């Protein structure tokens, strides 16, 4: 016993190094496999508020473009409204399944294999895990961590992200993943080789999951090839969204999420 203590005291630097190094490596492995670390992420209060200050400054540099985007979206929505015959009752808002709320992006990254965004809305604004995040152009990701005032989004540019999408023309659906190569190209997998593909076909969300409603635009087919076993396509999809300069996003809240989840759980 005495010798053991002596050994530790003699090599205390090495022991400390080994301890800290293994903590760090296990944190890395954990973040690659599950999303379990509750405290150590950027939706943490202190961290997110520092990002908030910095985004408060940098916001001013893109006011013009952001305004332009909002105007475009407004005019699109207005024209939709004018061209639609009003046949739904005025209290139809009570029957809506999805409701949107806006949020600001405090932090965004797109160079790592696992990218996350930090938003300025949290539990206080009734944001919960597994809510979808979109912009006026396309999808961004899914909320995976929430604190009181902030939340973290698992970006579609993340190797852990799997989102169900379909081809607009043929209605065939597959999984959207990312191979970390480029920030504007994601991969659509699990599409049968029987499907007729054309470059430029639109890809939209399938609406099978409780996270995103159907028919949200994602991107267009950029190129495609067969996988190693020659029976499924790997399709490169060029995103409508520019993931590198996100600022204003919408959080989609599904009112039926509890009901849907209860159904899915009873399956398992």
């Amino acid at each position, binding site marked *: 016993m005495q010798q053991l203590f002596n050994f530790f005291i003699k090599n*205390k*630097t*090495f022991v*400390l*190094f080994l301890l*800290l*190094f293994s*903590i*760090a*490596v*296990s*944190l*890395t*492995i*954990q*973040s*690659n496999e599950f999303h379990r*670390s509750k405290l*150590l*992420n*950027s939706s*943490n209060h202190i*961290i997110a508020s*520092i*990002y908030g200050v*910095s985004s408060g400054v940098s916001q001013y540099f893109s006011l013009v473009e952001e305004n332009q985007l909002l105007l475009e979206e407004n005019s699109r929505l207005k024209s939709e409204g004018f061209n639609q015959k009003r046949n739904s009752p005025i209290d139809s808002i009570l029957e809506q399944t999805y409701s949107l709320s806006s949020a600001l992006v405090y*932090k965004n*990254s*797109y*160079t*790592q*294999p*696992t*990218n*996350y965004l930090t938003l300025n809305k949290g539990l206080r604004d009734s944001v919960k895990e597994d809510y979808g995040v979109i912009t006026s152009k396309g999808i961004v990701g899914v909320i995976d961590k929430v604190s009181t005032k902030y939340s*973290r989004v698992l970006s579609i540019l993340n190797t852990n992200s799997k989102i169900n999408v379909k081809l607009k023309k043929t209605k065939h659906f597959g999984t959207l993943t990312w191979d970390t190569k480029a*920030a504007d190209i994601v991969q659509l997998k699990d599409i049968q080789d029987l499907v007729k593909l054309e470059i430029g076909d639109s890809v939209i969300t399938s609406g099978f999951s409780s996270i995103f409603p159907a028919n949200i635009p994602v991107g267009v087919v950029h190129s495609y090839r067969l996988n190693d076993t020659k029976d499924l396509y790997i399709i490169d999809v060029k995103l409508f969204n520019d993931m*590198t300069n996100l600022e204003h996003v919408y959080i989609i809240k599904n009112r039926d999420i509890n009901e849907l989840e209860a159904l899915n759980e009873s399956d398992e």
Partner: protein
Amino acid sequence: MNNIIFLNIMRFFGLLLLQVLICNNINFMGYINPHVYLLFILLYPTSNNRLTFIFSSFLLGLIIDVFLDSGGTHAAASVLIAYIRPLFLKFSFGAAYEYQTIKFSNTDFSQRFIYFLFLIIIHHFILFSLVVFNKNEMLLIIKQTLYSSIFSLIICLLFNSLFSKKQT
């Protein structure tokens, strides 16, 4: 003595904020970012308590990880180079280090260059191996290590010579 401790605490927080708020948004050529916070580990006084040094390096890496949502990758790489630093001090500065008398501002540029180069390359290699975390992507790891190291090295040397008080 208190002055040195104060300087290092300031450097800790200054470099931390510089790294996460500015340097991680550079994305030169798409993905290359300099890791300026290494200067804290590189320039930490040589006559130190090694336990405090290793622990503060770990802490710096960990806080950066929390900011960037990158698990424990920066922490692992930082703690490793903090641990092996004496080896490279001896290698680059030779006899001066043996007597514990070196001050980084008084050393030769070439010696400092070698010292920075080795530690930065090791740090980046560990960092990107853990970030990519896939042994089939060795080429990608080496490519990223190489490009980012060059960028980090230039920025670190630049900062070092900008803020060093040289007695002339």
